[in-house]
């Protein structure tokens, strides 16, 4: 019976984190962007600084009509938001907040999270194709091209840390982490973080949803709750990216003073704000700049980092 209870508590906790954290990031984006751009943002709903704006948005999305275009491929079109959203829920289950504070402690947790996030992008591709809209198709194409280029830096950056720690388990990597890794693994951190932001198609890598060129890319035809699911999956992606960056590169639950899950939450929040900050700070990259950055900067950097990690790791071991 205690085992069943343990499982139920873990499942409920992961579900709660999945429902709360992306919304918190969404609210933070409203507020942080408004302040950085010297404007107010939503201020009226709910009274204090418009805290209820998110609730109002949710109610609005629920009320909207759920339209499936007549020319669209209905089944794929309706399935796509789920395919985009659910993998992040699955990925969150494997990310530890502290040793033992995790949905499922896996031997290959790093691979698990990477594989789950890779599936999420399929949802965007399905949306882009099935909408029967040329803007959506262009957006889907751009998503795929971007993903193919940036998957490599992400995986190489993550594998550098895995080599340094000698394990694929996220708890193990977090435990093996030492503060000087922030210097030694800095190139891998850059590759992982930049590649991660690009895979989420967040600005400045938002060519796939470039609103001034192709309306809203793959999501152009979506309305109501299905559209909201895509937005939510973007925020869930930010949470997963920030949490992974924290566990792999920033020491997770370690910190000055007592270790604990609250360090993990604090660092994840800070990295999420950084993702939002990047959106405000840089203009959109062009397609050729995008590919140049991936293939001429990030991939060579990641390969050099891998060699460095291998040499240092072998040096320490011998």
């Amino acid at each position, binding site marked *: 019976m205690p085992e069943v209870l343990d499982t139920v508590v873990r499942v409920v906790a992961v579900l709660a984190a999945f429902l709360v954290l992306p919304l918190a990031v969404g609210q933070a984006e409203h507020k942080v962007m408004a302040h950085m751009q010297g404007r107010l943002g939503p201020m009226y709903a709910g009274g204090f600084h418009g805290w209820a704006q998110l609730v109002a948005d949710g109610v609005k999305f629920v009320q909207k009509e759920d339209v499936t275009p007549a*020319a*669209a*491929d209905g089944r*794929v079109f309706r399935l796509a938001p789920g395919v985009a959203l659910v993998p992040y829920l699955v990925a969150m289950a494997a990310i530890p907040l502290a040793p033992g504070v995790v949905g499922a402690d*896996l*031997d*290959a947790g790093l*691979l*698990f999270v*990477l*594989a*789950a996030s*890779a*599936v999420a*992008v*399929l949802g965007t*591709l*399905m949306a*882009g*194709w*099935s909408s*029967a809209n040329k803007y959506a*198709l262009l957006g*889907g*194409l751009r998503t*795929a*091209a971007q*993903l*193919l280029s940036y*998957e490599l830096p992400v*995986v190489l950056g993550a594998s550098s840390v895995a080599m340094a720690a000698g*394990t*694929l388990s996220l708890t193990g990597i977090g435990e093996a982490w030492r503060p000087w890794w922030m210097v030694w693994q800095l190139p891998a951190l850059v590759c992982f973080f930049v590649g991660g932001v690009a895979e989420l198609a967040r600005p400045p890598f938002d060519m796939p949803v470039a609103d001034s060129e192709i309306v809203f890319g793959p999501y152009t035809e979506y309305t109501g709750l299905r559209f909201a699911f895509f937005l939510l999956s973007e925020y869930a992606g930010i949470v997963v990216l920030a949490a992974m960056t924290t566990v792999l590169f920033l020491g997770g639950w370690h910190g000055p003073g007592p270790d604990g899950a609250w360090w993990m939450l604090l660092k994840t929040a800070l990295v999420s704000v950084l993702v939002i900050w990047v959106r405000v700070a840089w203009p959109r990259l062009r397609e050729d700049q995008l590919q140049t950055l991936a293939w001429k900067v990030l991939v060579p950097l990641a390969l050099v980092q891998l060699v460095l990690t291998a040499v240092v790791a072998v040096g320490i071991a011998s």
Partner: protein
Amino acid sequence: MLFALLGVVAASSGVLAVVSRQVVHAALWLVTALGALAGCYLVLGAEVVALVQVLVYVGAIVVLVLFALMLTRAPIGRSADLDSPWQQRLAAGVVAAGTTGLLAAVLLTGVRGRVVDVDAARSASQPLARSLFGSWVLPFEVLSLLLLAALVAALVLSRERTGAPEPDAD
């Protein structure tokens, strides 16, 4: 039990991928087939292999397939020209049946009656890496050379077809 269920899902979505007359649906059924195969590995205790299967096949190869489809032509609805003539179907059926028979014969005679316990510890990442880069390192490296050769050959073929490369071509 779970293994049998996943096997049925994998096999039937594989058949659907071949039979489907909508080219993108075929690619999506392929995703289901590969995912169910990963599930089979997982049930057999090979966690790392299952995750790599998802990461590489679903995350990279199917994305590449979808990208190529969208770049060339991916009409919504059925494409009549995807139907092959009956001779080709017959030949494909014969080849498929032959392969199935061969594999079934080898496996049935090879492992008949033997029961192997599912041992998750043996297929964890470290023992797996040790055997991959220990006893299996030569086939592994030969395979990577083979892939490199295929890559170079593909480049050469695509260059020859277009003739002299234009100065401002990508």
